[in-house]
Each structure stands twice: as structure tokens, then as C-alpha cells.
């Protein structure tokens, strides 16, 4: 179990979490929902260490490799799709994972020239090429059509623990979630 206890976070003037506690399972797909601005993305950023909480503890993350799919693809635009993924793994694995997301024709296209949906798939590929232990995903289906959504959902299911933020209620069925956290 990943135990988040007595978490307090203030960003600027806004208190995002005050003495907040929650448990996440060790494995499975967890969907995090809630109103806009309630702190879903902040929770993800705390889990991956990009935000340090003022107080509180997180247990169960030691020695576990975390990868993140951000709301924006955050690719290196002058590198190709394949090079972006190959930065975190070997070339063969990068190629394999990109092909599993229907990117076989765009492997050697610079990220800056890809469409929004294609960039999102490269971002997903990079995350899963880096680690399948814990994958944190912030709106991972943005810009994807139905077929690519299904492929992405299949990939997400392959993670040991996937924590997914989504606004779309249909995503719960698509991902066959194991747990839902409503902030």
C-alpha cells in the first residue's frame, strides 16, 4: 500500500490540501476524479516528487520507479518520436512500444511536426518505456481517437500501478479501474 498521511500543501495563497490522508493500492488502476482545481494534478506532482508538501508523509514509494504522463506531452521538439522515447530506454524497446501505439509511420518524424494526438502517444510511450512500476497519468487520453484510446488503455493496464486523472466518466469503464478516489 502507498500511504499518504496528514498531507498539507499550499500553492501561493491557496491551500490545496489540509491534513489530507489517502491510501493507494500497490497494484492496479486507480482513477482520481474531482472538480477542476481541487488538487488532482497537485496530488500527482507530490507523488512523483515535483512538489514537496509542507507537512505529511508518503510511505510505500521507496525504491519504486515512477514515470509520469503530464497534461502536456512535454517532448523535445527537435528530436524525432523515436529519439524522444529512446532517451529513456534502448532503441529497440522504444520502437516496439511506439509501434504498439500505432506510431510505426511517425517514428522518424520530429516531435515538433506531430499532431496533438501523436505527441500524446509519444508521451505515453516514453512513460511506459521508462517504467511500468508506477505510472502517473494526467488526462492521458487527450486528443486520442477511439481506437488509440483503446490501445492506450491496454498499455495503461499493463502497469503495475497506474494512477489516472480523468474528467471523462467513460474512462472508468475503458480502463476497467480497480479503485476510484474522489477528491
Amino acid at each position, binding site marked *: 500500500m502507498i500511504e499518504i498521511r496528514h498531507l498539507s500543501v499550499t500553492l501561493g495563497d491557496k491551500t490545496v490540501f489540509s491534513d489530507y490522508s489517502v491510501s493507494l493500492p500497490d497494484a492496479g488502476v486507480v482513477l482520481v476524479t474531482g472538480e477542476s482545481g481541487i488538487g488532482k494534478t497537485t496530488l500527482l506532482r507530490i507523488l*512523483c516528487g*515535483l512538489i514537496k508538501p509542507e507537512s505529511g508523509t508518503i510511505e510505500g514509494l521507496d525504491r519504486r520507479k515512477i*514515470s509520469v504522463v*503530464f497534461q502536456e506531452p*512535454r517532448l*523535445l521538439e527537435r528530436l524525432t518520436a523515436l529519439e524522444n522515447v529512446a*532517451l529513456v530506454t534502448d532503441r529497440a524497446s522504444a520502437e516496439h512500444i511506439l509501434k504498439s501505439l500505432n506510431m510505426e509511420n511517425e517514428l522518424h518524424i520530429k516531435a515538433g511536426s506531430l499532431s496533438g494526438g501523436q505527441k500524446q502517444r509519444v508521451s505515453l510511450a*516514453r512513460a511506459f518505456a521508462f517504467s511500468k512500476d508506477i505510472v502517473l497519468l494526467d488526462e492521458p487520453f487527450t486528443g486520442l481517437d477511439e481506437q488509440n484510446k483503446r490501445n492506450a488503455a491496454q498499455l495503461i493496464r499493463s502497469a503495475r500501478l497506474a494512477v489516472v486523472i480523468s474528467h471523462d466518466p467513460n474512462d472508468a469503464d475503458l480502463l476497467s479501474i480497480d479503485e476510484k478516489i474522489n477528491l
Partner: protein
Amino acid sequence: MRILRKIVSICVPIAVYITLWQLLSMLVGSRLLLLPSPLDTLLSMKEIVCSASGWRSIGMTILRILSGYLFGCAIGVSFAVLTAHFRVFDWLLKPLRSLIKTTPITSFALILLVSVASGMVPVIVAMIVVVPMIWQTTEEAIKNRSIQLSEMAQIYLTPWKKLCYVSLPQILPTFFASASTALGFAWKAVITAEILALPKFGIGRQMQFHKIHVEIPELFAWTLLVILLSVLLENVIRILLKKAGQRYD
């Protein structure tokens, strides 16, 4: 056709200015004292480039420029890294930058002359001119890096890969632009410092010598040489910087 147009666009303005120069020298400079003709200047230039002492002066000046410039770039980048990342260095070093930027280079040269060998004064002055330019622009480039990409790199990349793939490609274009501009300023600073410090060999010393002896064609010839060498060196450095930058494209 494009090459021809480019040649014409360069040669025609030069020809216009040389003609104007010739006309002016005929009007006001019947004696060489006031304004030598382009031909007199060219003849003096030929004498300079055919003499060993001429080349020694040119070589020493270029050596001083390159030394001051390279040291200045290294110090400027180091200060930029420190002030961009550590507040304490920002507080400590920012007043120094303001001081350097506002103090005239002649003041620096005269102060340095008291305690430093005359040959070293131009090197230090060039460094003093280059440091704040490189420092300020590089610091701004470091501070303006994409936060989103830095966060991505924090999750996925080793520090070395982060530097090569994320940080340097964002910083280098700004650095190269300011490094190119700084070279021109280093030229001017070194010549000025040489005129004041009068080292054993140097273009500035030669210019001062010909000024004292009212040898105006020689003075014009050295000035023309400075312009030509400056353009040449700037282009060489620009090509080198461009080649270095291509590694990160």
C-alpha cells in the same frame, strides 16, 4: 543570379563610400595632413602588411583579443550559472556587474596601468568588457528555460542527458548571439587599451605612434586593417559557434 545580386549589394555601397572618400580627400585634403586619399591609405596598408613589425603588432593584438575574449566568456558563463542558481551569489555579484557596466573602459585601463604590465592591460580590459555581456544574457537564458521541460527531465533523464538535451539547446542560441556581439566590443576595448597602455607590440601602439608623428595615411591604414581583421575574426568565430551549435540542433 542570387550570388551576383549579393556581390553587387556588398560592392556597390563600398564603391560609393570609396568614391565619396576620394572626393572629400580631394576637397579638404590637398595636403595629406587632413584626409588621405584611398590610394595613399592602400599604399600605407601595403607597407604595413609587408613588414615584420606590422605582422607582430597584428599578431599580438589578436592574441590579446582572443585571450581576453575567451577568459571573459568563461568567467561570464560561470557567473551566470552562479547568479541564476544561487541567490547569495546574485546578491553578491549583481552590484559588481552594474559597476563594471557603468565604469568607462579608459578608467579601467588607467587604473590597471599602475599595477599591471602594459601588455596585460588590454587583455584584462577586453575581459572586463566581455564578462557582463555574456553574464547577463546567459543568466537570462538560464532563467527563461522551460519549467515544463525541466520537470520532464527531472523525472526521466540523468543530469548529463538533461544538460545536453534540455538545458544547452535552450541556452546556447542566446549565448552564441551575445558571444558574437561581445567579440566586436572586445576589439574596440583592446585597441583603446593599447593606445593608453602602449605595450611593446600592438595595433593601438602603432596608431598612437602615427598620430603623434601626424602620419595620417598610416593611421587610416591601421584603422582600415582593424576593421578588416575585426570582420574576418568575427566571421571565423561566428562559423565556429554555428558549427558548435549544430551539435544541439
